[in-house]
């Protein structure tokens, strides 16, 4: 086996991290805890709350769009809906979710450590997250009402509109800071706290993706920080930075905005890809194909992802040379992602596939992410982008990658790791039913967007021409199917926490990484002794491919 450590078995009398009694009692023992596992749970509760809010706004948007003309709200309110949906889903859900929940809980365990490098900073990151969330909520309730600029806050409207843009921008700023500190913590943790026997190329692939993500978090986020700060200053002090009425360049704002926001989508997808690399070997019972390629592709995605931002700006009046260069670079960035997909598929080949719930979501990921990714590459072709920019085609594209990709990976991680985190098993059958409803609803919701966008339906429009009605109608039905599926999935988890079958088994799924060698749920210290790791994390003994890999 991969670990050969002494005394990994605790005496069984050690309390789990859930029951552990530290300096503080009750709720204080949670919100003042610096234990990475408890912080992961804190994030989970808050992130899922905001996810639910984001879903509600999405639901309301689709309800409005089910028919042309006004259905439930007027245009101004619709603008606020899509702004809030974007801000909440992006800054409060997708960016933090996998790193802050599963990275926090499992990264130290995966590398054989007892905690992250800076536990108190970790707790502070969560406080910042909550503060950012509260600021976002304030933008909704304070006079002026929520921002209606879209989550992109483009100049000049963001300095003209009377709505609570400043609250929204401050929320994003604070959330960015939370993200930065998490990244800083993870980088230091991976460098300094790996078990002595775990070299870089024995790390699980999810750790590689958390690491690559952390670099993007640390380097790219300050750019959005300063950009949004400048917009706030411009609104308050009328300084003259981006506002064209004061001599500024609104396109420069877009450049600055996307220099972060494009790498941000890699902050979103890389952890998801890490989850895929974690789960596929386990449920295909095969060694991962091309470990080093997958590891390096994470770094490559982080690097190349910083080079392509202006492909969001092909229609705003950039120079021809600039557009050409960014289009070319956009083609390049697809390559490392494709390498991952090929390696995952190769891992599945001749594997003994077990369709447990986590695996269902992962297989769906590969399919949905491929659609999203390919539609993305299409948009990298300038001639196509001129046609589809600001249409539903874009909306369909990014929901396929962010939701079909990261979202589904997140759901997979929940199904994979929740039983470990809480020692309770959910109902497998119910989980599978929920999956199929979610998968169906997802495609019914988003595929029509690709079609109608291609045919010219603009995005962020609350009204539309009658020819688009059938697509919108189908799409809204899809949203209802999706939401039913989500409700079943989450209800399944909640029930399991109370009444699910108790598990004490350490290795639920037959995984080879370190979290499956420790108690279920883990003890406070994670490990009684720091483990010794001998081999690749994904070696499955009963197949020749594994032996070949070892020899290479």
């Amino acid at each position, binding site marked *: 086996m991969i670990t050969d450590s002494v*005394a990994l078995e605790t005496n069984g009398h*050690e309390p789990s991290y859930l029951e552990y009694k*530290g*300096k503080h009692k009750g709720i204080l023992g949670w919100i003042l805890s*610096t*234990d990475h596992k408890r912080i992961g749970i804190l994030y989970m509760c808050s992130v899922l709350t905001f996810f639910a809010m984001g879903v509600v706004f999405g639901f309301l948007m689709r309800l409005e769009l089910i028919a042309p003309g006004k259905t439930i709200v007027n245009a101004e309110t619709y603008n606020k809906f899509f702004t809030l949906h974007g801000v909440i889903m992006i800054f409060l859900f997708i960016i933090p979710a996998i790193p802050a929940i599963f990275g926090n809980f499992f990264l130290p365990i995966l590398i054989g450590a*007892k*905690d992250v*490098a*800076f*536990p*108190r*900073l970790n707790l502070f990151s969560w406080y910042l997250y909550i503060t950012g969330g509260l600021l976002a909520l304030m933008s909704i309730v304070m006079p002026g009402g929520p921002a209606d600029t879209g989550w992109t806050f483009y100049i000049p409207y963001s300095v003209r509109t009377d709505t609570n843009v400043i609250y929204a921008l401050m929320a994003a700023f604070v959330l960015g800071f939370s993200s*930065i500190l998490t*990244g*800083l*913590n993870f*980088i*230091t943790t991976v*460098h*300094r*706290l790996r078990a002595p026997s775990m070299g870089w190329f024995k790390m699980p692939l999810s750790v590689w993706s958390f690491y690559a993500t952390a670099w993007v978090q*640390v*380097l790219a*986020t*300050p*750019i959005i*920080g*300063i*950009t949004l700060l*400048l917009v706030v*200053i411009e609104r308050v*002090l*009328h*300084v*003259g*930075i981006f506002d064209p009425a*004061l*001599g*500024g*360049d609104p396109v*420069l704002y877009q*450049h*600055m905005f996307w*220099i972060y926001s494009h790498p941000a989508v890699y902050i979103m997808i890389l952890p998801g890809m890490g989850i895929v690399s974690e789960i596929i070997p386990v449920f295909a019972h095969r060694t991962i194909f091309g470990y080093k390629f997958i590891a390096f592709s994470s770094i490559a995605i982080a690097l190349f992802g910083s080079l392509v931002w202006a492909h969001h700006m092909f229609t705003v009046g950039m120079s021809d040379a600039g557009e050409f260069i960014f289009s070319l670079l956009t083609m390049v960035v697809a390559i490392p992602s494709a390498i991952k997909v090929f390696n995952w598929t190769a891992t599945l080949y001749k594997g003994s596939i077990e369709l447990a719930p986590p695996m269902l979501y992962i297989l769906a990921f590969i399919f949905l992410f491929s659609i999203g990714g390919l539609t993305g590459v299409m948009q990298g072709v300038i001639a196509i982008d001129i046609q589809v920019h600001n249409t539903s085609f874009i909306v369909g594209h990014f929901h396929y990658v962010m939701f079909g990709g990261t979202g589904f990976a997140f759901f997979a991680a929940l199904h994979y790791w929740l039983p470990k985190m809480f020692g309770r098993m959910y109902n497998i059958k119910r989980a599978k039913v929920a999956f199929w409803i979610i998968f169906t609803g997802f495609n019914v919701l988003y595929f029509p967007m690709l079609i109608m966008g291609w045919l010219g339906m603009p995005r962020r429009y609350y009204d539309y021409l009658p020819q688009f009605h059938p697509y919108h109608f189908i799409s809204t039905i899809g949203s209802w199917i999706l939401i039913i599926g989500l409700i079943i999935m989450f209800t399944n988890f909640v029930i399991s926490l109370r009444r699910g079958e108790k598990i004490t088994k350490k290795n639920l799924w037959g995984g080879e990484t370190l979290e499956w060698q420790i108690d279920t749920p883990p003890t*406070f*210290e994670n490990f*009684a002794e720091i483990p010794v790791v001998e081999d690749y994390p994904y070696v499955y003994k009963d197949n020749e491919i594994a032996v070949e890999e070892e020899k290479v």
Partner: protein
Amino acid sequence: MTTQAQVHSTEHVHRDDVGARLGMWLFLFTELILFGGMFLVYSVYRFTHQAEFHIAAKELNTLVGTFNTMVLLTSSMTMALSIVAIQRNNKRLSMFFQFLTILLAVFFLVNKFFEWSAEIHHGIYPGSETLLNEKSGKILFFGLYYVMTGLHGLHVIVGIILISVMMRFTSKGVVKHDDYIKLENTGLYWHLVDIIWIFLFPLFYLIT
């Protein structure tokens, strides 16, 4: 096997000076890129409004700017010297150098105050009528000037607070000759504040 009582600590606090410095450097990168973003904006506007930037810069006082640069560079030296002193277990000397650093930083801010007062007195400040009647290049120049030197000044203030805390820590023995990582990291922060000014100075004061 350690007993439960020994193993339990409410925090996993272990000493790792290298890790602490690594984390500090990562934080400094975020500051570097925060200001770097503004330098990006500056560079685009200087490129597109070269002549107007040139004219606008004449309003700034090169002498004060140069003097302030020397002040900050000196404060960087005193900061570095305070660390050598504590390494050599010379607590008093270390605190003296830390105090000098603070003094120089305050001096820098006082100069800034007079600079800004003069400019505001001439009606040149964000949102002022005088400024808004100028050419867009000049508006942009002073917008960037106030925001960048203002944000830098805020960082100087934070630095002063941090170094003051370090002085107290040094006097109390929290910072000592075999454990001075807090002072070191404060020093790193201070040097970055200096580096930012090293770039701000020529780009605003030395456009001719």
